[in-house]
């Protein structure tokens, strides 16, 4: 587990503290869960996933060269 600090607007920090208190979680847990949830939502974006895979295929020669660098 790595430690990091983040800067948040005052209002956002207050909301986050309130949610963490209500759910009996630490703010760190709340932030981790929020980031993970955001990633899960984005991962269901089929257009994005398709485009990322297509890019990896289109630039395969460059990727192979970097992978052996």
């Amino acid at each position, binding site marked *: 587990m790595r430690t990091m600090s983040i800067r948040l607007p005052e209002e956002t920090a207050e909301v986050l503290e309130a949610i963490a208190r209500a759910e009996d979680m630490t703010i760190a847990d709340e932030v981790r869960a929020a980031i993970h949830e*955001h990633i899960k939502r984005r991962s269901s974006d089929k257009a994005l996933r398709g485009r990322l895979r297509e890019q990896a295929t289109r630039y395969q020669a460059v990727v192979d060269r*970097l992978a052996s660098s």
Partner: protein
Amino acid sequence: MEVVYLDVADFVLVTSDALNIEVDEAFRLTALGIAETALERPALVVADTEVYRPLAMKAAVLYAALARYRPLVGRPEADQRVVAFLCLVEFVERNGMELDLDPDLAEQLVGVAEGLIGDSEFAQWLAPRIHERTP
């Protein structure tokens, strides 16, 4: 046109596809603070002025930051470079542009990652190779 930047979720998804690992595993590998710092670099504003412009310069600093800061914990340099490059590609395309598949591209990317080529020099090399996407 307003520039659209990548965030940590994009980075994790690029990593998942590039390294052929599950999204949860890519998330676990990602040093979130380091990734955030690198992903935010192209959007840096000082005294109300964007530091990095135009798009080629933003793309150059994005790749350089990801390749040099190495946000993937425990992964080799090569993986960091592959993911950084594919983030560059997605950043360019998300902003309506496309990067030419130049035969010297890989050498440029390695040079930047190793600190042999500076961000500005790389941006100058990139600029004529980024053009509007053809439908």
